[in-house]
């Protein structure tokens, strides 16, 4: 039963199914981005497949690979009780061409998930009714889950208080010594950076 979905996809779309695997029973198909929407439509409409429930969608950045961004879609059929995972690889080093057809017209539940993929990974969805950021604020620049986004870059909406303004050190407070407590997020250089 687990091979049914992949077999059917290969039979119908042939070369558009770039590769498949069923690791631990999880059926996965890597598909041609141009056929993304057609395949999604087929998965929902074919009576033997009947994928009626969108589970999740996310973007994964592989900086050493081309195309670099992988969009992963998880689907489930409540009636047939089977799952499938679709992947499409888009975008070059500068994220040019990182575009996919929106599947919101097929499953309305992907509306916010496509917005999340756009917000976090920067993939644009053609035909999405309202492609805005959903988690980050509108002033935010860049897409934080791209590997090229600097890990320590923050974009505060209100300017931080200075130590002069606060009249006290903002970096560390008692009882935390250099080797105690959590070093994360304190202003100034990371304590471990001094060691190395």
């Amino acid at each position, binding site marked *: 039963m687990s091979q049914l979905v992949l077999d059917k996809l290969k039979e119908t779309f042939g070369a558009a199914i770039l590769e498949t695997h069923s690791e631990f029973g999880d059926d996965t198909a890597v598909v041609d981005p141009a056929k993304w929407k057609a395949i999604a439509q087929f998965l929902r409409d074919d009576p033997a497949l009947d994928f009626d429930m969108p589970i999740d969608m996310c973007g994964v950045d592989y900086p050493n690979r081309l195309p670099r961004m992988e969009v992963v879609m998880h689907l489930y059929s409540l009636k047939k009780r089977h799952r499938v995972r679709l992947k499409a690889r888009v975008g070059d080093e500068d994220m040019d061409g990182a575009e996919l057809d929106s599947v919101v017209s097929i499953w309305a539940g992907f509306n916010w998930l496509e917005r999340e993929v756009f917000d976090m990974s920067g993939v644009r969805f053609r035909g999405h009714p309202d492609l805005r950021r959903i988690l980050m*604020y509108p002033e935010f620049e860049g897409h*934080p889950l791209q590997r090229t986004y600097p890990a320590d*870059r*923050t974009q*505060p*909406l209100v300017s931080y208080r200075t130590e002069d303004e606060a009249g006290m050190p903002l970096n560390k407070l008692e009882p935390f010594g250099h080797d105690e407590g*959590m070093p*994360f*997020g304190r*202003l100034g250089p990371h304590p471990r950076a001094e060691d190395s």
Partner: protein
Amino acid sequence: MSSDDTFSPTTSLTLDGNEQGFATTKVDALLGWARKYSLFAYPFVTACCGMEYMAITSPRFDLARFGAEAPRFSPRQSDLLWVVGTISQRQGPVLKRIYEQMMEPKWVFAFGTCASSGGFYDNYTTVPGIDKIIPVDVYIPGCPPRPEAVLDGLMLLQDKIARNERRPGVVKPRIDPPEQVRELVRLRRSANDPAELASRLQGPAPTEPEPK
């Protein structure tokens, strides 16, 4: 007053109405004393520390003992801002605005590690401690802090208010003495053995009298 010469401490004093007298104090001290027992809280609860906040405001820990039990959901009616949980960059302007809307005098609790320093979030989305945005009076570390730690923080704040002291304070971690913990563990384990438990609690267990 009783005519008995021996001093016996009591919790109350019965007055017969003829006493006269006065007390002296300073205005600041009087104000501080009044303020420290009427803290109206604004709970700015954003994350999992909220569970611990709910525990603290429940009758078991009884914040009414400190006069701090009344939450006000308008910043204009409150003078103690409890920042409970992680503050994201997106919430930064909201927090600052709430703080600015509060009337003077006002105090701020950084409840939990995330509010105090950002906690283990060291990323693009989290404010690394609310003191980067607003002044903090008492930091209560813990993930989440135990209710006892929060009560420590509240008493620390009351002390600071009474002394009109605005430098921030930190609740220090309390560690149970290890020998006491070991004794508690032994006591707990011996609960399965009634004779052992009785001997620990009241000396040797009573033995059955020999049948004659």
